[in-house]
């Protein structure tokens, strides 16, 4: 970081005439705003209540009318801008704002408890955090239903994911498809997430916010759909090749197929008595054979009338996860697999998780029901589902992993 000459810098404090040294507001720095110098912590503290307003470039409805102080100039033709112009992005992807308005859900559709204030209160109870619920036949049927609807919505979204469309458009499609199925799109306002689906292209690991960026031939895109219907959540995601270029890119195919296979391998060991700590060993072992790494920060989760609950399912090896699968439990497995480092960082939007080296990642997820015999993949692919495995493209120069793709169906 280059150091500016410290000459004549004034403290930002409203009531302060002091010269400022080198102390800066950390939140401003994180947001890529420079120049927030203060003479002392005390002065900063006094001015905090007014100063902190600068940190809200896109909060509230006003921001759609007044662009925040420090942003890139909106593109004159499109009106799009990057809200974090000085943030050190790890890859080539940039957010494309403004986000569209929050989409409405008719009151007639049952809402989860967080729809208004963003706080999933029911998940924070001891029941959500400690105990693993065993679903009865009726509840299992509820899970079956919402998961099937979720599959339909994901397939519709996937069919629309082609070069040239924006992720916001995919959000619109998902949102409408949920409403048509009398379902609330679970991500909407969960922890204040602004959209109805997570769209995570290329180096985005997960939790990408649908925005105005148009998909490009050669992208890979994860679409993570969750529906709330009949009192239950159904959660699934897949990574799709955008255009033919992606399918011809050996690295893209390697990471996407590795992630698909990791999930399939892990599901094979889901059965009564199977240990939650074991899936991570299986996933990491398989990822290594494809020369890929496993993202460690995010894990699978219990799911039922709560979006996220016990158990936690780590995807990395050597974890101490407590417990074993029992008939009637529902949880997800959703490995995120990377071409490069497993280390992640989060954009200043507090959601978008990307790899620290900017290399691409892929993810697949199913909601699973443990049965007496083994496992039922509630979100299984249908015969006509979009996407699906792709064979490794023929590579001239490197003789690596040519055509090893295991075309096993994940159902």
């Amino acid at each position: 970081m280059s150091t500016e000459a410290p000459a004549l810098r004034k403290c930002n404090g409203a009531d302060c005439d002091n010269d400022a040294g080198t102390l800066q507001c950390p939140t401003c720095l994180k947001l890529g705003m420079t120049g927030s110098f203060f003479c002392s912590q005390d002065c900063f503290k006094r001015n905090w209540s007014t100063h902190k307003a600068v940190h809200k470039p896109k909060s509230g409805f006003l921001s759609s009318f007044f662009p925040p102080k420090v942003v890139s100039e909106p593109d004159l033709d499109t009106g799009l801008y990057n809200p974090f112009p000085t943030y050190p992005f790890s890859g080539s992807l940039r957010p494309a704002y403004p986000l569209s308005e929050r989409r409405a859900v008719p009151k007639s559709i049952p809402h989860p408890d967080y729809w208004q204030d963003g706080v999933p209160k029911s998940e924070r109870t001891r029941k959500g955090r400690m105990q693993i619920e065993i679903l009865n036949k009726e509840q299992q049927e509820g899970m079956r239903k919402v998961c099937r609807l979720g599959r339909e919505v994901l397939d519709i979204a996937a069919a629309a994911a082609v070069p040239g469309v924006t992720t916001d458009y995919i959000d619109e499609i998902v949102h409408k498809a949920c409403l048509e199925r009398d379902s609330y799109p679970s991500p909407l306002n969960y922890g204040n997430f602004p959209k109805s689906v997570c769209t995570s292209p290329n180096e985005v690991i997960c939790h990408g916010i649908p925005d105005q960026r148009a998909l490009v031939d050669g992208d890979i895109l994860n679409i993570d759909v969750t529906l709330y219907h009949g009192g239950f959540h159904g959660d699934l995601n897949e990574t799709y090749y955008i255009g033919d270029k992606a399918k011809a890119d050996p690295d893209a195919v390697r990471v996407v197929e590795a992630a698909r296979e990791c999930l399939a391998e892990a599901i094979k060991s889901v059965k009564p008595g199977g240990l939650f700590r074991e899936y991570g060993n299986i996933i990491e072992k398989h990822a290594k054979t494809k020369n890929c790494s496993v993202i460690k920060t995010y894990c699978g989760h219990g799911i039922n009338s709560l979006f996220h609950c016990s158990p936690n399912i780590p995807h990395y090896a050597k974890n101490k996860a407590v417990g074993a699968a029992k008939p009637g439990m529902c949880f997800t497995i959703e490995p995120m697999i990377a071409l490069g480092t497993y280390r992640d960082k989060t954009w200043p939007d507090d959601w978008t998780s990307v790899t620290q080296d900017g290399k691409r990642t892929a993810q697949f997820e199913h909601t699973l029901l443990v049965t007496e015999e083994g496992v039922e993949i509630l979100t299984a692919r249908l015969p006509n589902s979009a996407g699906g495995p792709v064979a490794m493209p023929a590579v001239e120069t490197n003789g690596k992993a040519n055509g090893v793709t295991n075309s096993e169906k994940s159902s």
Partner: protein
Amino acid sequence: MEFGEDDAPPILVNVDGAGNEDEDSKHLKVPITIVTGYLGAGKTTLMNYILNEQHGKKIAVILNEFGDSADIEKTLTVNTGGEQVQEWLEVGNGCICCSVKDQGVNAIESLMDKKGAFDYILLETTGLADPGNLAPLFWVDEGLGSTIYLDGIVTLVDAKNILKSLDDPAQDAIPTEGHDYDSHVGPLMTTAHLQISHADIIVLNKSDLVSAEELEAVRERIESINGLAKLQVTQQGQVPNLQEFLLDLHAYDSVDALEISKKGHSHLDPTISTISISTPIITVDQLPDLDSWLQSILWESKLPLPHASSSGDYANFAHEIHRLKAWIPLVNGEAKIVQGVRDVFEILDAPSNVSTEGRLEGKMVLVGKGLSSTKFEESLLTTIGPN
């Protein structure tokens, strides 16, 4: 995102001199010690003593209000060579949902990223905290590559009042939520019990306020509850050999000789006791059996039945285990160690620098409620079978 706005200002950062962080320093792991004890046991005095003592270490003290890391105080005090600085922890609003790592752990890691690593971190809990809820959060999976590791739990005990605390339900206010165990059956379990049973080090403070006989009675009672912990008698929270007694405990990554005190076998306390069982030298093939036995007793609170005939004897045998350590020698000359707190456990390779010679059998020590060494030993031997 906008909703994550803290009400309090963060600490300003000095931009000059930033950015020359040593990559290698990230691989150094910083020990975190959890300090518990009733209000008045002398925690604050001990903390001040540690912060003010000239030890040449950079020690961070974090206050934890409610015994749940979600409520971790946003400020911590760092002592560097006698100088104290307040720092702010950035505790994200984070999606608990799918993030494996605890928020408190993340906050400490990110502070160290910015300000450089500490030498030690002490997490001071409130008087009513159940350390068994906190320990698993800071016992971070090896696979996560965290920059901190749980060094151990230190419990301060007020020699004058502890016996009353252990026997008097009125003293106790365990919030029912967040505490795993129902205490409505069987003998009384107080927070004092939990704080002692999970401890790796017990500092018996205010010893100057009791007679020698009283002190001995307290010592016996504590040792009967937790025979595994090391006991340190002190006055006014002063621990002369800080490093020796409170720091570098390695209570979660190594296992010593597991010499439990002589008093350990007595049942002076009606609620919690320590048991020690002998284990045979086993083969590598028997490790999965040991593993499933541990799963049964720790996850299901079920003691596998030695044989059908004795089922009546075992049926009503409810136990709960707070702490478990074991040394398991293998036929091939290597050895495994087992570490457990509540339902979380791990089987690890024993450090190679510890000699196995002269150890003809393994040993397992358990601290908890409803434990019987004969039954546990019989159950374990039956489960792992002869080698």
